[in-house]
């Protein structure tokens, strides 16, 4: 665990250094850019609040991917589950307008259920027709994308606007803000704790992890892999759906707008990969990536480095962290092997000098002495 954390930190450090070189090579003021990046994401109350708000969907989509991948369910459908979750909350909020204490829990449930349903289709296709969830979840992304686009530009279009979007939801489902920090972050934190307990402490989570590492082992051990696959898919989908739902419930817009969600879903996949499907690392990387994305906008203001640089930096971090995880181990092991071989060779000259050579000519015993 400690060793992993060190490797990860080293990977991040090297990646940041590489980013510095890129900035410098492009002719930007490298150090001031970094200073801006972090001062706009961490070093003021406003900066921290923005980072936490940004982290909210990333935590959830990251958890979604981590639960999926860690259980050996290749759920790449976060995009679709996110959109369907958001759509469910929008529709529910437009149709019903009840007081917040009723509306908020119900909206959260709607988001969870909608995401789970969308992932559940893929799980069902796998169980029923043995279709690979890797393909079906990807395909369902397109269906969700065009289906929601149809809704917001057709039946649910708000005619008062000029671009495809729904009406605003009733204010009952709006999450409160405290000094700019949306309560959505608190919901994400609760989801994180629940997921962590499920994953690291529960019998079910143990079975999912075992299935992710070796599905034959878990099956032989008496775990119901089929049911666990479906359960893990539903959980994974529910988390992504919740991420979408919170986008409607939190923030300022409270409506489904064309193009919403942007990269949150794919960032989640990336975060889970960097975090090696660990729950705590997923949470931490989500915060870290949120900081970079938030700070990049400040950096653009201060030093004119395009905010797309955040994408470059993220990509470098992923490459370095993932690569260093395997390669440092390999390098260290190889170095250790060389040392060991050299040590063994040294004892050869000191210890059993001359004795270990057998002539091969005489019959009888040809024994190596010295051992």
């Amino acid at each position, binding site marked *: 665990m400690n060793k992993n954390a060190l490797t990860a930190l080293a990977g991040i450090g090297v990646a940041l250094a590489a980013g510095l070189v890129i900035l410098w090579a492009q002719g930007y003021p490298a150090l001031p850019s970094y200073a801006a990046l972090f001062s706009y994401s961490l070093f003021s109350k406003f900066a921290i609040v923005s980072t936490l708000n940004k982290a909210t969907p990333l935590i959830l989509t990251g958890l979604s991917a981590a639960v999926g991948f860690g259980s050996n369910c290749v759920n790449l459908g976060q995009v679709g589950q996110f959109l369907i979750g958001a759509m469910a909350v929008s529709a529910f909020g437009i149709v019903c307008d009840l007081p917040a204490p009723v509306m908020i829990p119900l909206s959260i449930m709607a988001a969870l259920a909608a995401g789970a349903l969308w992932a559940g289709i893929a799980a069902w296709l796998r169980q029923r027709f043995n279709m690979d969830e890797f393909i079906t979840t990807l395909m369902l992304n397109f269906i969700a994308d065009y289906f929601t686009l149809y809704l917001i530009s057709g039946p649910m279009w708000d005619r008062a606007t000029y671009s495809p979007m729904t009406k605003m939801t009733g204010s009952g489902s709006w999450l409160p803000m405290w000094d700019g920090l949306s309560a959505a972050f608190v919901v994400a934190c609760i989801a994180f704790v629940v997921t962590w307990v499920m994953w690291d*402490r529960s019998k079910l989570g*143990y079975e999912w992890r075992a299935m992710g590492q070796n599905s034959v082992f878990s099956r032989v051990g008496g775990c119901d892999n089929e049911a666990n696959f479906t359960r893990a898919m539903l959980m994974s989908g529910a988390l992504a759906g919740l991420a979408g739902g919170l986008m409607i419930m939190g923030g300022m817009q409270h409506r489904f707008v064309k193009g919403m969600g942007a990269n949150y879903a794919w960032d989640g996949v990336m975060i889970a990969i960097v975090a090696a499907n660990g729950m705590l690392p997923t949470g931490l990387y989500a915060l870290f990536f949120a900081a970079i994305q938030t700070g990049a906008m400040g950096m653009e203001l201060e030093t004119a480095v395009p905010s797309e640089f955040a994408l470059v930096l993220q990509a470098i971090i992923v490459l370095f962290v993932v690569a260093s995880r395997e390669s440092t181990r390999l390098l260290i*092991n190889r170095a250790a092997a060389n040392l060991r*071989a050299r040590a063994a060779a040294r004892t050869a000259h000191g210890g059993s000098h001359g004795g270990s*050579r057998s002539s091969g000519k005489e019959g009888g015993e*040809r024994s190596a002495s010295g051992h």
Partner: protein
Amino acid sequence: MDDHFIEMRSLIKVYPPDTLALDRVDLDIREGEIHSVIGENGAGKSTLMKVLYGMIPTSSGEISFRGRRVRYASPREAVAAGIGMVHQEFMLVPSYTIYENVILGAEPVGRLGALRNAEARRRVRSLIDRYGLNLNIDDRVRDTSVGAQQKVEILKLLYRDVDVLIMDEPTAVLTPQETGELFRRLRDLNAAGKTIIFISHKLDEVLELSDTITVMRRGRRVTTTENRGLGKADLARAMVGRDVVFSVEKPPARCGDVVFEARGLSYVDAGGRQRLDKVSLAVRRGEIVGIAGVEGNGQFELVQLVTGLAPVQSGQVKICGRDVARASVIERRKLMCYVPQDRKASGSAQKMSLTDNSIMTHHRLNQQLESGWRALLSPGKSRRFAQNLVDTFGVLAPSVDAPISSLSGGNQQKVVVGREFLFGADFVLLDQPTRGVDVGSVEFIQREIIRKRGSVGGSAGEGAGVPSAGCLLISADLDELFSLADRILVMHRGRIVADLAPPDTTREEVGEYMLGVREPQTIAPTGAGSGACAGAGACAGAGEGAPAR
């Protein structure tokens, strides 16, 4: 003539990070000899040969062949130089014919890339005739027996004109009869001038076959000796470094009630092949029933049906009197311990910790691992459980939090066996429990199996305290079956063809049944009893003999 043929000097090989597989190994192989290299699993014998064959690089040291220093970068170079190796796992294309397999990679190509088949076929045929291999070159490999496939592997090397044949544990997959044939063939090849390096850990075979014997232990060459006047005990002592007891002490069986019963089990696989054909057998409390058979004769399917990994198509499976034919895996696991065949593929998750690997199945059945809530597991209790397993079964492990892959094969197997034996179930299914495990661990595991069977034969007071179980032991190792089993059932083509009692049978007899050379016995439908238990009286009176539940 005999010097400077193959000389290895101070070979060192370290597998990353720090497994010293070869520790300053010097070895001379003389031209035209049959040289056996023996040692336990992990002694370095295969590594040494792979280094010679160019499969893996050394860390340091020199190899010379016919007086010239060599370092082969790949097996292809080694073969071109005249050194060939037959691996434990065959490297053949099952859907190709024998002829096609032989020429693959060394095709006789004429102008414009056309195959010059006629000439090559003549050559392959003449090699078969010359060495008496008795193969039909147009048979498809998948239709041939294991013994024949091994001959194809040898033929491949002969076709490439090698002078040195390295055989890596060639008898592991063969029946006694096939082994005898292989030895005759190796002697013929040797007489024709080939040098043969024979890797094995079976002492009898080595003593029978070789001119020279090299013993390796923990990466070192312990001794190289002419095979004259040597005994098994000498070699074993050199191999293990201490005296070895060859037969495990075993009190006579005293059977109790039937704990496992299969009746008329048949199974047809997805390809429409009849894998099991009305198999009936019974295991009683206090006995170990062994199942012998060449791999692929239905043992795999039998295990699948018993454990619930495949659906029972027809027939009955009863554990402790309960019909479990429709029961789920976990329902069955409440009634049985199961040591799966392959610890890497199905017995463990290599990247998970020792703790996570030891609580499998217990996590559902053992409420002591729960923390307050039924749905949650307590990390502390799980670790203590694993620690207890480690202590009880003498597992050598850095910590219960280490991934199980950091343990040696023998210790991993002890974890798997220990995990299963900690269930109190009365029926134990053991599928190759000691495969690929070092001698020390084999001894330990075999003793545990006998303990599980129940030492009712001991003093009365002691016997009553040890609950006895019925064991079904599937093993490809006849030695293991003869030293452990109270009865040996032989499987051939999905049927049980013989029910034999070890003191009254021989390995040869079992081998003949395994090959289907002998007419199947007629076996009582219950499958119980060739009178192997210590006297009918013990069986009949087992009600009192077996400890009360």
